[in-house]
């Protein structure tokens, strides 16, 4: 009689243990799946952040102070006018408050590769790095651009474009 009374309790205990074990198992599987899914979201977030940084640099390159415009042929994308930038560098004091004190733009020619030489109004165009504010940059956003200028060869004026990089550092977003 006593054994029969406890038989039901034993069955209930068994069922309870089984339910706990199954629940724990599915919780572990669910956690594993979530970790796997969230790691992919982190990668996507990093990719978007990189893309945004590059878009900001491109925005500067396409602003009227830097972009090529009709003078160097219309329809050129990702193009900066080196002649315009060096003229801007000469008048940069007028633009000090325009972009903020912690902003700087550097346009560097990558290919064809030459020894790095910073541009001034005196040595231009025999140089390949135009540092607009003359400051060192940190916390940068950069992207590839085509650095174009007017060249004179044997009396023939033509558009010369080289592969370059525009590097922007600033505190506040445009």
């Amino acid at each position, binding site marked *: 009689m006593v054994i029969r009374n406890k038989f039901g309790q034993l069955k209930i205990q068994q069922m309870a243990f089984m339910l706990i074990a199954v629940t724990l198992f599915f919780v572990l599987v669910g956690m594993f799946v979530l970790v796997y899914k969230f790691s992919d979201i982190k990668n996507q977030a990093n990719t978007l952040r990189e893309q945004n940084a590059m878009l900001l640099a491109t925005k500067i390159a396409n602003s009227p102070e830097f972009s090529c415009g009709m003078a160097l042929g219309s329809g050129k994308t990702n193009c900066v006018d080196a002649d315009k930038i060096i003229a801007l560098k000469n008048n940069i004091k007028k633009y000090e408050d325009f972009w903020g004190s912690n902003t700087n733009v550097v346009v560097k020619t990558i290919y064809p590769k030459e020894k790095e030489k910073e541009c001034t109004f005196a040595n231009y165009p025999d140089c390949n790095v135009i540092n607009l504010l003359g400051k060192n940059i940190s916390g940068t956003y950069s992207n590839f651009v085509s650095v174009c200028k007017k060249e004179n060869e044997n009396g023939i004026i*033509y558009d010369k474009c080289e592969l370059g990089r525009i590097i922007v550092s600033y505190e506040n977003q445009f």
Partner: protein
Amino acid sequence: MKIKKSGQEKDLWTNHHVDFFQKKKAQEEKISKRNLSSLSRKSGQEEMVGFVLIMILVMVILLIVLGFVLTGKKGIEEKDYQLDSFLESALQITTNCSMNGKILTLKDMVPQCVTKQKCENTNEDICKRMETIFRGAINQSFNPGKESYVKSFSLNIYKIDGEQKETVTSISEGSQTKTSRVGWSEFIKGKNYQIYLKNYY
């Protein structure tokens, strides 16, 4: 010689046999009860063992399926905006090659390469010059190498003629890995041209 048993002897014999059989029956009942109770004690343990075996079997199957899913997965290829910008900028590079008195850009060289032309001023094969410039630009920009972040690259230029896709040139360096980023650009110079650059990491 027949031995006649008395009535008393008969009773004693019968009683002895009855006692024997009764004792045997009682013993057998005792054994079966003992077996039953030990069985009922062990049935819970058997069920638990069975449950654990099922759990282990399910986990092993899950691990095998997971292994197939992860190893069978193709390498990751992502679109890279920076590579798009690189291609658009590189195509505007002014070369030292001229044709019909006009200095060619890298973009201008592509249709000339299809028709296997040579530079008028240097007499150099336009396709070779174009490949040299592309290689130089990619190496300066990404510095691909075994110990570099970018392990290798491949560049392909195609001419699209209706539904036909013809390879104009194909440049690659280094051994390809499973993870890559791709950028592309399209332009029209008489015909449609597509250029793909893939960096392997």
